[in-house]
């Protein structure tokens, strides 16, 4: 079916064979899964890791002196080391397991923001942000009297270091910016932006939900203070995200949630809290999810994030070429600067859901709608887009089928 492309450093057939779902049909047609921006498919080693905890271990962590609990604890702690390694965390950096990238942003917004933001301080963000990296900042601004400021967007939502520099002021305390837009795939120059922010004395949080899943990332090179990402978008299970931060910053923040396992001592009326990561991991965590995320990291590392990014880049190029042939298509997003493997478009006046439904009927999974980015849709002056997003297992054939199916959309709605 699909063949290993000259542009792909790994054996595409073998990688595809790791994903049992790729042999499944959707609406009776072979599955072309192009909704990786929403979540990724899961390879066998990740499923196995999840099962093996549930079936063979099943115990809680940090709580028992018996062998099963010990094994769970060791696997859980190892997953944390893998998560840190995956993003090149320095020795003074820590990885907190959360339930999602969304929770991770909220921890920073509330645990850092509510403690350190003063009236008149500025939070700098952009209109391309996913709601997860926007609404928490709206709310913390409301609660603290800080102002939410926006970087001026260039054509198609492009963000340059210069546009960020122009928006920074001496009141800017934090810059909250995406590492890669989930609508257009655009990747702001994060390292440059961080340097500019730091020069102004502001800290930087990067929403890496798309970036970390699709590109090699090194937090020291990016020079960011916080980086959030989600397991489910990178071959991992649902229900686990990561908040990376420097330990000194994290330990200065209040907890967001309170309960067991995050305390040193508890009295009737007060408690003393542990340091990060425990301070932010109260309650029984998603143990199987964390362990399976560890397996996902190992899986991706073995193939190589560099090779994956390259594969997607070529698919993107090919798709842009092929989609240019489609009548009445409008493509969104800047095609200069670095872009990851995401394409947003509309087909004439056809509603995105209708495009999505027709594609579904052809076995093709895309996402339609506003992609949790309403302000960006408003900026673009549209109600939504159809989004095709690639990952390591996608093929040129997936792209060909997409193009053909768009012809079918035109037949139905032409």
């Amino acid at each position, binding site marked *: 079916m699909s063949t290993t492309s000259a542009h792909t450093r790994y054996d595409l057939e073998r990688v595809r064979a790791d994903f049992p779902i790729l042999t499944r049909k959707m*609406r*009776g047609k072979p599955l072309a899964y192009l909704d990786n921006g929403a979540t990724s498919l899961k390879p066998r080693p990740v499923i196995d890791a999840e099962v093996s905890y549930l079936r063979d271990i099943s115990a809680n962590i940090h709580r028992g002196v018996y062998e099963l609990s010990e094994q769970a604890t060791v696997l859980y702690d190892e997953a944390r080391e893998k998560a840190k390694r995956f993003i090149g965390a320095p020795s003074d950096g820590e990885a907190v397991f959360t339930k999602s990238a969304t929770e991770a942003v909220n921890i920073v917004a509330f645990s850092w923001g509510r403690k350190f933001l003063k009236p008149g301080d500025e939070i700098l963000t952009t209109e391309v942000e996913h709601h997860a990296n926007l609404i928490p900042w709206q709310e913390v601004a409301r609660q603290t009297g800080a102002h939410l400021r926006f970087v001026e967007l260039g054509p198609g939502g492009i963000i340059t270091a210069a546009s960020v520099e122009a928006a920074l002021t001496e009141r800017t305390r934090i810059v909250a910016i995406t590492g890669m837009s989930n609508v257009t795939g655009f990747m702001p120059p994060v390292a440059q932006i961080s340097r500019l922010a730091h020069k102004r004395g502001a800290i930087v949080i990067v929403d890496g939900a798309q970036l970390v899943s699709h590109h090699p990332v090194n937090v020291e090179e990016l020079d960011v203070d916080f980086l959030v990402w989600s397991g489910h978008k990178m071959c991992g299970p649902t229900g686990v995200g990561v908040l990376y931060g420097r330990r000194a910053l994290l330990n200065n923040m209040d907890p967001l949630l309170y309960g067991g396992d995050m305390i040193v001592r508890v009295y009737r009326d007060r408690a003393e809290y542990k340091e990060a990561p425990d301070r932010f991991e109260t309650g029984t965590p998603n143990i199987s999810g964390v362990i399976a995320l560890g397996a996902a990291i190992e899986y991706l590392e073995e193939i190589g994030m560099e090779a994956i990014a390259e594969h997607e880049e070529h698919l993107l190029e090919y798709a842009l070429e092929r989609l240019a042939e489609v009548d009445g298509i409008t493509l969104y997003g800047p095609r200069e600067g670095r872009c990851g493997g995401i394409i947003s478009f509309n087909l004439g006046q056809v*509603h*995105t*859901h*209708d495009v999505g*439904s*027709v594609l*579904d*009927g*052809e076995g093709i999974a895309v996402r339609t*709608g*506003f992609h949790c980015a309403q302000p960006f849709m408003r900026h673009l002056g549209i*109600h*939504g887009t159809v989004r095709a997003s690639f990952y390591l297992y996608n093929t040129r054939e997936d792209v060909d089928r997409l193009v053909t199916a768009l012809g079918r959309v035109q037949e*139905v*709605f032409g």
Partner: protein
Amino acid sequence: MNLGDDLYREIILDNYKSTRNRRALESPAFRQEGVNPSCGDDIELYLKSDGEQITDASFEGVGCSICIASANMLCNAIKGMEVTQAEELVERVKGMLTRNETPEFPDGAEDLEAIQGVAKYPVRIKCALLSWNTLHQLLDEVRSQARSGD
């Protein structure tokens, strides 16, 4: 499976493309917005009533073909109906889409059968239902105004 047969039947597409009812009513007696936040469908439904019958109905807004076609059929169907008849119709459409019922539709509303295919696509049901849920709210208003006008 032929998607066209289930979801995008001719009647749906015709109703989607029809512009007959896609307008605001001037000084309408009743007006109600309906939104599906998860998909961005956003319509405004207008009704005129002489206290007993619905004398006119129209809508504006954005939505997918299912949403718009359903709203268009709704306007066609309820014009001339009494409030209680319209309420019954709302129930029948809901029954068809959410409880797998196969209702009989009154004369002039037979087009609505074409929506039945949507029931097989759970995430699209709310598209088809948006205008009907909005109508349901509006009818409550029509009723209470009729009462207070007595």
